[in-house]
């Protein structure tokens, strides 16, 4: 998994988010953006077909407690389906960019 920061409000994640280390690393990068004052964050997940629950829990905290406006761009249809099944599509501002 690779994470790239674009500007002060966007993260681009390539590769599969699967291990505990991946979850902690992604949480850390999101926290950096939030600590930097970002009130809205775009999270572009290009390849991963799922999100670990540790990341989901952290995103829920960002949205519900920290009131960050989140836009999640999902590049894999299965990720869109997962977030839809978990009723998080609206909460996370999910858009499916999969072809």
């Amino acid at each position: 998994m690779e994470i790239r920061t674009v500007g002060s409000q966007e993260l681009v994640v390539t590769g599969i988010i699967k291990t505990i280390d991946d979850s902690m690393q992604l949480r850390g990068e999101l926290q950096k953006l939030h600590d930097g004052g970002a009130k809205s964050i775009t999270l572009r997940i290009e390849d991963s077909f799922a999100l670990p629950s540790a990341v989901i829990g952290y995103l829920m905290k960002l949205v519900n407690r920290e009131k960050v406006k989140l836009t999640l761009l999902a590049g894999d249809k299965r990720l869109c389906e997962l977030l839809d099944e978990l009723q998080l599509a609206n909460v996370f501002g999910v858009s499916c960019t999969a072809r």
Partner: protein
Amino acid sequence: MTNPLLKSYATGLSVLYVEDDPIGSVLIEKMLEPLFDRVYAARDGAEGVRQFHLQQPDIIVSDLMMPIMDGIGMLREIRKSNQKTPVVLMTASLEHVHLVEAINLGVSKFLAKPLRAEALQRALLAVTRELSLERVAEQARQQEVELLTYRNRYHSQQVELARAKERHIAGNLLENRYMQADEAGGWLVDLLQQPRDIMSGDSYSVIPTADNRLLLFLADAMGHGLSASVTSMLTTAFFNHSATGCACNHLGFAHLASSTMRFAMRNLLEDEVFSSLVLELDPLQQVIRFACCGMPALLLVRNGQVERLRGLNPPVSAFSPPIQLQELSLEGVTAILLATDGLGDAPMRTGGCYRDRLADDLLASATAGELFARYGVYCDDADNDDDITLLRLTAIGVGQKQFSYSAPGTLAGVSSLQSYVSRQLEQEGAKGEKLDALDLALSEALMNAFEHGCLKIGVDKQRLILEGGYDELVMAAEADTGNEIQLKLTLGSCQGRLQVWIEVIDPGSGFDAEAGLGGNSAATAPSGRGFAIMKRSVDLVRRNQVGNRLVLMQMFGE
């Protein structure tokens, strides 16, 4: 004198009369007012058009020759938006060209001037009678539509209720769990059902007992429709009730099996038959006991070979003899397949029945879903009008290579354990997206064990995440003897394909995820998300009864 029949037809109706002559207008008004609820007037055709659009009268009575716009002109305008309102046209003389156009514009009655009361009443009687009949017909149509809508709604509600009842009675209480045999292994039930209708003739029940046995009922009532399904549902409900408190001995099971079949017998019509199976699996004694009445043979996979176990009893009918039980050792058995005849009887595209292929496909598949997919390769399910219910009882953690690991109950500990296991799997030949998915499921399982087994977070997880405290708790966890997470990795082969079993054991006393849902659905509750993610990622995932062990199974290769 007012015709009482006309009065009754005209009640509730409104009329517009259009007459330029003031005396004529007064006379007409005097004739109309006793009959109609509402009477509107206009002095010429143009005003008549305005009044028509404003008041929407039920009937128009109009003079023909009027200034500004005559009766035909008015009617022409009105007919642009309304084809139905009846018109009575009064005229002193009607030229041919007016007559033709008047008829084409749908004038209902013509009256000669000077107007006579009786003539007007006769014309109005005909027109109002026609209107009255139309209204009655329209009401009847409305009532019919309402009745049909009600019936459809009632039927839909009944269908939904029947479906809900079916789900309530027929169930797999081991759906997300497995029966732990002892410190090593256990059994899980993998169920797939393809009903062809609501209130399916097939039914089933899977019940784990408090003393760690598995009781199972499978039924196929012959025939279609309500009668067949009522038998199945009733007998399943009886089995469910009787299985509670079924004593842990041979006599207890014998009583359960025979009383269930006797119940079915007593509720069958003379010409009805009912195929069913009652089975007990005892993982500690390593034995199955069963009574099979007219169901297809059980298939057992023992030491890599398939054994067919035919039942000893015919289908249950109103006149069945006492049933015979069978008992079998589970030594070496890794899978048992129970299925209703909809599966084996299905015709294959190449000829013959799927029963001819079932043993081979059972060996080649690791889950009920895989077996059903193989069935779909050889048979066209769209052509199969018989219900299919199949239960695959699978022994957990069977394989040729076994590895055991442990990790301290810290974030670094579980993270290292995951990396180690992932590398081991790569070395054993696991690769690709299936390995990525298994890695994801493993990270969920390890975090679950860490959070609930080591940190004892329980149902507080969501609150800790939202209100703060979760990260601190996770980061501050220290290694502690006795607070370690165990992992068992078993690698086996299924017809040349790599089969991976992972069992994650946490040191806690167990966490009941269903109790932690707090009224939310399993997918949306915080304690259910991890499980939902695991289910999507691997071929099988189950918890033990207590909730402190989790098993994952993933197949690699086609």
